[in-house]
């Protein structure tokens, strides 16, 4: 069936071995999906003109929620009336995105009926992104979502955003914390913040089960919860021998099925703190020098495992560049036990948000507030003591704001006495 709009440029993207979104959307359009047809036409126009054709959102949403829907209108409704309105709905994913075909088919049914049939699996934050519907469909979709799918919308705007974690204990031997439960629990606990704007700006939680950080929490989450341990790396010396003897493939096969493993070059010498030694028989780790970088563990997963006294490092403030430049998260709690119901952590979060809500300017991310006011103010607000683990290096400028409380007489001088000692 010929589609409504010719798409000679897009068609170029049907070539090549990688899955083609163009072929995919055309397939759906060919089934009579009018939104897909016009969306293809609009994309073709953008490709031709090298400019996008979507306008700002405007406030659309479902009743009682201040987030979860991104309004979107096309700037050429004259040419593409079926995508004149093309709002996105963010559906909060189950933590780390396990599905069965049953629930996914239900989503498809819903979206074929009431939306464009286009999705992102998944959005960068983690949501199931349903791309393109009209304002009048929002409430019906929401109803079906909550009633039939038992699902809810995700975050947008100055809300808590849908938290996400790595798959953690569900399939990974390195998970030091139950990322999935943490994410689920926080999401449930803070439903109100997720649906109703109460913050100066957006706020994101992400949790990775270990320092590999497979959900990129340290780069993308205002609050990054990263699993770690504080006892010793567990060593299976027999398995070490297996690796050294070429019986076990190194690096879990990530470098292919090779047999030339060199424990010195690949492990001992690459340990960032050089705290390992191998005498040909026994592998030794000076654990007090280990920074838990996971390198040795990932190279010899059958021989080495994280310790058993596990918990998380909490880091704050990651964000994209706007306004004050991109930030990675910074350590504020070197170690915290993370066990359900996460009471200590939640108390920390409440203090953190209070501080941010009280001091943050409009559209000021937590990381920017910390930048502006200094880590000291944050630590005071959340009642944490300074720790060298919070910095790569202590300050190197002498611009110290000494606390007047520690100075005899505080900020005051006795001017008269001074001038008795010193003639002007």
């Amino acid at each position, binding site marked *: 069936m010929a589609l409504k709009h010719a798409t000679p440029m897009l068609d170029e*993207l049907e070539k*090549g071995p*990688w*899955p*083609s979104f163009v072929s*995919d959307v055309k397939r*759906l359009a060919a*089934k009579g999906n009018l939104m897909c047809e016009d969306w293809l036409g609009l994309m073709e126009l953008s490709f031709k*003109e*090298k400019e*996008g054709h*979507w306008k700002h959102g405007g406030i659309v949403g479902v009743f009682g929620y201040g987030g979860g829907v991104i309004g*979107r209108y096309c700037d050429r409704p004259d040419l593409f009336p079926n995508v004149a309105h093309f709002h996105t709905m963010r559906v909060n994913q*189950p*933590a780390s*995105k*396990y*599905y*069965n*075909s*049953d*629930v996914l088919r239900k*989503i*498809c049914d819903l979206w*074929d009926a009431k939306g464009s*049939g286009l*999705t992102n*699996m998944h959005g*960068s934050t983690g949501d199931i992104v349903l*791309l393109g519907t009209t304002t009048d469909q929002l*409430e*019906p979709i929401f109803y079906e979502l909550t009633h039939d799918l*038992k*699902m809810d919308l995700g975050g947008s705007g100055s809300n808590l955003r849908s938290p996400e974690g790595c798959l953690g204990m569900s*399939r*990974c*031997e390195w*998970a030091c914390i139950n990322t999935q439960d943490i994410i*689920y629990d926080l*999401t449930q606990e803070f*439903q*109100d913040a997720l*649906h109703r704007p109460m913050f100066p700006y957006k706020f994101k939680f992400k949790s990775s089960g270990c320092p*590999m950080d497979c959900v*990129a929490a*340290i780069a*993308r989450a205002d609050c990054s919860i990263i699993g770690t341990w504080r006892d010793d790396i567990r060593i299976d010396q027999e398995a070490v021998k297996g690796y050294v003897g070429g019986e076990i493939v190194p690096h*879990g096969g*990530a*470098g*292919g099925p090779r047999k030339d493993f060199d424990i010195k070059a690949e492990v001992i010498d*690459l340990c960032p703190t050089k705290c390992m030694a191998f005498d040909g028989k026994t592998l030794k780790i000076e654990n007090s020098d280990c920074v838990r970088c996971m*390198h040795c563990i990932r190279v010899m997963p*059958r021989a080495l495992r994280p310790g058993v006294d596990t918990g998380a490092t909490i880091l704050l403030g990651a964000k*994209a*560049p*706007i*306004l*004050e430049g*991109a930030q990675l998260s910074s350590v504020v709690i070197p170690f915290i036990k993370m066990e359900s119901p996460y009471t200590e952590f939640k108390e920390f979060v409440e203090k953190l948000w209070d501080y941010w809500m009280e001091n943050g300017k409009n559209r000021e991310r937590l990381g920017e507030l910390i930048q502006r006011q200094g880590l000291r103010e944050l630590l005071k607000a959340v009642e944490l003591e300074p720790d060298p683990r919070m910095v790569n290096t202590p300050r190197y400028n002498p611009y110290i704001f000494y606390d007047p409380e520690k100075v005899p007489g505080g900020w005051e001088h006795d001017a008269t006495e001074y001038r008795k000692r010193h003639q002007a």
Partner: protein
Amino acid sequence: MAFDPNNVMQDRITDIGPPSYDKFFPPIIKENFGKWKYHEILEPGVLMHVAESGAALYSVRVGSARLISTEYIREVCAIADKFCDGHMRWTTRNNIEFLVSDKAKLAPLLSDLRGRGSWFPIGGTGNSITNIVHTQGWAHCHTPAIDASGVVKAVMDELFDYFGSHKLPAQVRIALACCLNMCGAVHCSDISILGVHRKPPFVENERVQNVCEIPLVIAACPTAAIKPKKFGERKSVEINNSRCMFCGNCYTMCPALPLADAEGDGIALWVGGKVSNVKSAPMFSKLAVPYIPNEPPRWPTTVQTIKTIVEAYAAGGRRYERVGEWINRIGWERFFEKTGLEFAHEHIDDYRLAMTTWRTTTQFKF
């Protein structure tokens, strides 16, 4: 009860949050949760995780366009039904993983997937180039300087061989964002593709007062380039072009300040970022190429430049060495030499922390 448009509050359910994470787990995961012992990548795209109980789970990872239709999802479901009792998941980088509990179904699944044309490329594990994390582009956003899905498709086509193999020194993570908002981990990727504008917004003085909150617009500018200005009787703003670095943040606040432009917009490439704490600490990506024109539909210059970078890395990187670690070892002077990329004024930082990037040592290579 069915939805009643005249009574949206009836039976309303809110704040239930997402389904519990374990709701859709296959039984093998329920049973071995938190008790996995080790894993092995059997071949590119095929992971085996072995539990303390001895149980083994096979995950087959396939690439996906991320921008996918319900048609596509239904196909995925059909495959999952056939081989995985309906179980599957998506990864944090938008790949799909078919979860096989029964080893006997592994080989049939792989051959089934291979039989479905290019829809389900197998790979993305280990020392590969996995899926490109990306954003909306011209598909759905109002501020993009480039498309997202189109660029990703063109780049992945070219790098396809690296997706299904383990031949790189380490994993290479590519990300794309269509504007400086960087909806992804673009600022910390081995290779980042970033949509950039190069013309300051123009001010639609007639409209500003109607559609924008002027104080918010002014506050939105990172470089304080925007000032209030009267335009006849109307309130508007003025932009100091020479302070503008084209971030588009003002446009997000105010539709009467468009900055998109076919010739102005294009792509900047960044390299050497990472997220994991393995060996070295997480790092930001740094500027490799300040500007490449927008070249739809297949962005050949961008694609070839990325290829060049990947191949220089593949040739020069040592085992376990991420792109950024490779560059730190050889030095930026060598990076530019080996890739043939030009080093220009744009590469030298001139924003707030600029001085921390200058070379304050005589150590460098001639």
